[in-house]
């Protein structure tokens, strides 16, 4: 009997080891440990044993059962793990296939430039001022020291609606309005972005509608050197720390002295190339000390207050910064163009 049990144990363990899947294993469990299994059968024969042998044999039978059960359990674990692995293997994917695209649009390049400039000046304590695109002749010209008949009005041929109303030719009227609102008191530190309009035929370098950003600082002790320092900060942040600036005298009716700012050419590093017309410098913006007539007209005492102003064209800056070769791209809105300006920089 004892031998029979040992035999059964060995037989069962062998079968367990050979079983290939959970079903076979379960069949083995039922076969050996079930109520109709051989161990139960062996135990039925215990009645023939002596009282001393019975508990011994009972213990042995339990041992055998236990051993078989342990073996089954461990085999089952193994089989389950294998089944999981197999399932996972069957679930494998080609990770090189493209992902589901997330459609994201982006700023128009001009907005991108404008916001970049806004943020730069906001960081220096400026506020963003806006004003109407259709303006009175007074704010667009007269308040900016451009009385009627001034020869410089030729420089900016304008779209008039009536004799006194026109599409603004620059964002300077926002400055005039802001100064007027401050009623002769400082300080003012603003930048004014917006659309402006001039009677130009649209071609690669001209557009009848374009953007402008102007800045204005008015206070009791604003100097030309402050303008120079401010523009340098702007140029280095906008175009790179390695860029140099230079100021050249120029003329604008609303500033005196007036200057133009150049930055050193990135392409040739200053030695001269086609982009900088062999000069090593690229013109970026116009600026100057606010003309006393402009201050006085807005109600400021020009003996006490001084100020500086500057203005630039986002189109030109975008063209220089990104190498865009035709201003019309900005207004055609070809998505293949706009898309190129999505990258964060």
């Amino acid at each position: 009997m004892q031998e029979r049990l040992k035999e059964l144990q060995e037989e069962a363990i062998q079968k367990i080891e050979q079983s290939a899947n959970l079903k076979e294993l379960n069949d083995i469990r039922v076969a050996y440990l079930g109520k109709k299994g051989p161990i139960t059968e062996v135990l039925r024969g215990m009645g023939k044993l002596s009282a001393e042998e019975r508990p011994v044999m009972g213990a042995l039978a339990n041992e055998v059962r236990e051993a078989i059960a342990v073996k089954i359990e461990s085999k089952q674990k193994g089989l389950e793990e294998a089944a999981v692995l197999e399932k996972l293997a069957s679930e494998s994917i080609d990770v090189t296939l493209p992902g589901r695209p997330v459609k994201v649009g982006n700023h128009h390049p001009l907005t991108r430039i404008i916001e970049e400039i806004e943020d730069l000046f906001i960081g220096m304590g400026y506020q963003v001022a806006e004003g109407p695109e259709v303006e009175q002749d007074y704010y667009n010209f007269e308040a900016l020291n451009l009385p009627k008949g001034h020869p410089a009005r030729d420089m900016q041929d304008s779209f008039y609606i009536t004799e006194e109303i026109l599409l603004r030719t620059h964002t300077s009227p926002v400055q005039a309005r802001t100064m007027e609102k401050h009623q002769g008191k400082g300080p003012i530190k603003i930048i004014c972005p917006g659309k402006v309009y001039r009677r130009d035929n649209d071609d690669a370098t001209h557009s009848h509608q374009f953007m402008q950003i102007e800045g204005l600082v008015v206070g009791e002790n604003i100097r030309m050197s402050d303008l120079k320092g401010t523009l340098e900060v702007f140029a280095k942040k906008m175009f790179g720390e390695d860029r140099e600036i230079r100021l050249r005298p120029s003329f604008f009716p609303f500033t005196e002295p007036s200057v133009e700012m150049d930055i050193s050419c990135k392409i040739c590093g200053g030695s001269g190339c086609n982009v900088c017309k062999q000069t090593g410098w690229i013109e970026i913006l116009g600026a100057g000390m606010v003309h006393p007539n402009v201050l006085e007209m807005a109600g400021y005492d020009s003996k006490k207050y001084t100020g500086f102003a500057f203005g630039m064209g986002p189109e030109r800056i975008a063209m220089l910064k990104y190498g865009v070769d035709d201003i019309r791209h900005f207004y055609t809105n070809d998505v293949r163009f706009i898309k190129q300006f999505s990258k964060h920089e």
Partner: protein
Amino acid sequence: MFVSYKWLQDYVDLTGVTAAELAEKITKSGIEVEGVEILNEGIKGVVVGHVLEREQHPNADKLSKCLLDVGEGEPVQIICGAPNVAQGQKVAVAKVGAVLPGNFKIKKAKLRGEESNGMICSLTELGMEGKVVPKEYSEGIFVFPANAEVGTDALALLNRDDEVLELSLTPNRADALSMLGVAYEVAAILGRDVKLPETDLQASTEKATDYVKVIVDAKEDNPLYVAKMIKNVKIGPSPLWMQTRLMSAGIRPHNNVVDITNYILLEYGQPLHAFDYDRLGSKEILVRRAADGEKFVTLDDVERTLTADHLVITNGVEPVALAGVMGGANSEVTSDTTTVLLEAAYFNGAAVRKASKDHGLRSEASARFEKGVDPNRVRPAGERAAYLMAKYAGGEVLEGAAEVDTLTVEPAVVSITLEKINRVLGTELVMKDVEEIFARLQFSVSVEGDTITVTAPTRRGDIKIEEDLVEEVARLYGYDNIPKTLPIGSSTPGRLSAYQKKRRVVRQYLEGAGLYQAVTYSLTSEEKATQFAMEKRDTIRLAMPMSEERSILRLSILPQLLEVVKYNSARQNDSLAVYETGAVFLSNGTDVLPVEKEHLAGAMTGLWHSHSWQGEKKAVDFFVVKGILEGMFAKLGLSEQVEYVQAQVEGMHPGRTAVIVLNGEKIGFIGQVHPSMQKELDLKDTYVFELSLKAVLEADAPVLQYESIPRFPSITRDIALVVNRETVSGTLKEIILTAGAPLLKEVQVFDLYEGDKMEEGKKSIAFSLKYVDPERTLTDEEVTKVHEKVLGALEEKAGAVLRG
């Protein structure tokens, strides 16, 4: 203004300063030099040749076979195609081995069987612009004066061994519209002297006043008129050096008298006019305003109709010149002219501008008057011209001049303190520095304590106020030497306004939702201006549009965005999502500024999303676009304040359009473009929206406040309702929410069926209702009670029955 480097040396010593260096210095101290042109760049091997023989080419009608002495012993044979080549001429010859502009190398050649060892050149072949070449040589080769030396450098003789600086002048620096003006500027920059041109001459004993009398009726327009008389002139070509200088400056030579007036225009910046005295038909010059409708033929043979705004020079009766603009055909100098009346005058800029603008006659002369000439240079310019006419046209200059002079010339006297100069510039200059700068400019100064008083010469009419002096100091001291500082004093907070911040949020959101930002034109056509306009207003039209296409200010953005869609679709960008923010312009009546309202518009077409290899595709439809707007309103906290109401909007699909209502106010619309308009624009199904961004950004959103997260479970009941087709889900939702309050927290549509299994005119719509009590767990019974109430209300108010 074109400035010849060689010519400039007549007035200022340029030793040790190359043209390029000079250009850099001029640019940095005030006048931008746009470029320096090296006139003989890329040209070599061109000499003066003498045409010894010329005969017809045996095999070609239009070619000549020439034998030339080019100063190298044996004469050379050259085949020439110019019609004007002739024996005995001195001409420019590009020898074999020479190089002409465009890297054109001259080689030995055979032309129609005849050997050609070089090329006889026209001026354009030597790199000169056709429009400056004298008329007689414009169709052929240039002919040198007979005394030109054979074999010498032809380019040097043509003054092409020179460099020309192109000055870009701002309106305040009209003084630099002359060689002398530039000379003063350069002298100030270099700290050197100015040498004035020769004008001394032996005048005849006859008096100019015996020949002509000058009367000026319009003294305000013409405060100074000087008429000089030159007799016995011989009209002929001007000297070659003068012709070449004119050509380098962009002016075509004509004859000695006309060339001299043009030469003085360039040298002094003073326009002059030469009349043929004998053709004037009187001994009188009368300057007056023209009569309205008065006719006058200018020397370009165009008849002009004048008005009382135009200033004319007359012979006492009829006009002989449009003052400062153009002379008349009736008194023009011709090859027969012997007596010249030379006009040197000061005309008011405004009068000249009006005439030149009205007649489209912008010229070198009119431009100078318009910008203002130096009143003190009018007479010297006349003297200098007379001197040159005596020297180069054989003229006899009569003594004096007939003139009217009511011009009061007072130089500007301006005082400024050193402290102000330093305060404005941020510099630490001393008085000596400032004095030296004005000395270089040849401005006279007097100093008293901290104050310097400057008298500016009349040629510098731009110097008027203290700031002008500050500018002179700044530019000659050098902007490079001004320190870099940042503004000090009370600071201002740098920030965006709430409106500006929210606008950025909207842009970011829309781009995150897949839309690209477009920027289109505000000006459009009459037809497009009012399409999709949300308010009926008069259109605002430009007084002088450049084209009908861009003549009216837009009342809506969508027409332009649809153009963008069309443009992109035509270039295979079929799936497109764009938006724009910008002003639309609402008229308030003439002579008042319009209302500018910031709008937001968007257009979407094609696929909303797709994942090709997984076979996913979703086309844009109404609900895609609506979802995007809903997201935007949620972002701005306005969800509860916005409604969409089915509506008819012109240009939009009648069944697929809603107006957007914000707090009871109609602020925009959303929907599909009307199929007929889609067809017209060649668009596929396109969904759009346009709304007042201003209204959206200015709307008050509820303040952000934490709301406790429900601690008790919710109970969800789904219902499928059968309703009339016209019943909209919004109405049903409203009924459900009202009847289910307060336990009903959420209602969602989860199914819609309008198929043929439904009874005619009916549809099935299914809602998911979520009941929650924040204080406790709801029982089924409680929910059922409320739910029954909801169903009752649906049936009563919308005839909705549960789908069986």
